[in-house]
């Protein structure tokens, strides 16, 4: 497996994969941190970030998954490499190696975005103590959702020569995910669409916001996170097992 992972690295040389990741992260940060920060915002900075970020993640993270999964698999399809590789190694292990490599890249994205958010908060001087516990939870939940989406996008990218299949499903899912965030009443939609699971991270609720008073009397409260981890872990497992099964059975 170490050999196969090393191969994934060797294959992506000169594909500017890291550059792609950095460019994507730059856009992500500009989007996240642009805008004016008034005194109220800074006072509630740490909580406000956790409150807002799931929406930003829903917009960006699936997109990163689509791009990375597609880039890693397209090189195999373009050069008709799968048939060659399958005579040299086990098909299932090839599936795993590519998945792990992509997950590693996505974890890197999530980690960088997390560190960036913390550093930005310190730089802006958010008041209050840094809520490490909450941010730890936020990190774990975001990472889990990203891995869940990646597992699905990886399957779509590797199974079909045509990368637009993955793009289409991914973008549709992303819109459904966004939609589910803004219609929080449709609980089942939220639960069903993996791309909207960042919304489950909405474990910070904001109360007491008014038009005139703005955030003067606002307070944040930890919401019930329910069985989120269980649902996501289960979906990752389902996507992984069925995806791998179909890939291994498919003739190249």
């Amino acid at each position, binding site marked *: 497996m170490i*050999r*196969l992972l*090393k*191969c994934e690295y*060797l*294959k992506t*040389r*000169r*594909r500017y994969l890291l550059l792609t990741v950095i460019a994507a992260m730059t856009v992500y940060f500009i989007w996240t941190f642009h805008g004016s920060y008034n005194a109220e915002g800074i006072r509630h900075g740490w909580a406000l970030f956790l409150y807002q970020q799931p929406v930003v993640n829903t917009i960006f993270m699936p997109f990163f998954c689509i791009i990375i999964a597609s880039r890693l698999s397209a*090189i195999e399809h*373009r*050069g*008709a*490499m799968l*048939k*060659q*590789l*399958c*005579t*040299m*190694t*086990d098909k299932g292990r090839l599936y795993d190696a590519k998945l792990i490599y992509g997950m590693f890249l996505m974890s890197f994205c999530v980690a960088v975005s997390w560190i960036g958010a913390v550093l930005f908060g310190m730089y802006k001087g958010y008041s209050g103590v840094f809520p490490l516990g909450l941010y730890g939870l936020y990190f774990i939940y975001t990472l889990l959702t990203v891995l869940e989406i990646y597992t699905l996008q990886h399957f779509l990218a590797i199974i079909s020569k045509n990368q637009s299949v993955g793009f289409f499903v991914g973008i549709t899912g992303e819109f459904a995910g966004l939609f589910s965030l803004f219609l929080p009443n449709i609980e089942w939609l939220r639960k069903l669409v993996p791309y909207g699971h960042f919304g489950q991270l909405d474990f910070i609720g904001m109360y007491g916001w008014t038009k005139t008073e703005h955030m003067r009397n606002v307070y944040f409260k930890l919401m019930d996170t329910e069985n989120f981890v269980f649902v996501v872990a289960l979906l990752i497992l389902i996507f992984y097992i069925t995806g791998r099964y179909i890939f291994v059975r498919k*003739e*190249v």
Partner: protein
Amino acid sequence: MDIVKTKELTKVYKGSVCVDNVNMKVKEKSIYGFLGPNGAGKSTTLKMLLGLVHPTGGEIHIFGKEFNRKNRGEILKRTGSLIESPSYYGHLTAYENLRIYTTILGLPEKNIDKVLSIVRLDRQKGKRVSAYSLGMKQRLGLASALLSFPELLILDEPVNGLDPAGIQEMRELISSLPQKYDMTVMVSSHILSEIDRLADEVGIIANGRIMYQGPLDALHKTDSSKSLEEIFIDLTGKEKSL
């Protein structure tokens, strides 16, 4: 000993029989020419020998072992292959492409330069493969098949699309392999002239069925009034009109 032996090997695609009860025998250290018109079932047969396509029926024995899920890895370790169009990463150089294979297979890196000089790509090894001509890509494909110096080499239409000089070069290369490296070679083609004088034995396939198997000169003797080409067309055409 027969290095490759199939028994009633069959592949059915959605009701249409594409490989039909093929019994094939390939002798050790020989060159076996696998001949047949386009769509006859050559690639599908060879893919089954490599485990890329699952047979609908029949048996495969390679190196005297049954080819099944358990033995597959061990057999493939001793086999090199080039199936249909050559596989490559266009954004990498020939050397980098082969380095991926040596990494997967755990082979020494010095094999790379060795096979590149065998296929005469050593001077262009630093160039990106996307800039290669078709002939060069085919030779790179052959290089990757040779990388482990396997006992069995399976080449599917290795000269397809090459110019006459390229075909000649490839033929010389292939014909030298059994003596030089103790290899058994299976090479397929849809053009008789590419195979004759190269192969020790041929299997002629049409519509999934083996129409003839044995030495080419024995086939010639069956009807000396006709040229080899005519006999070949007779054999493969007969099936079509049925």
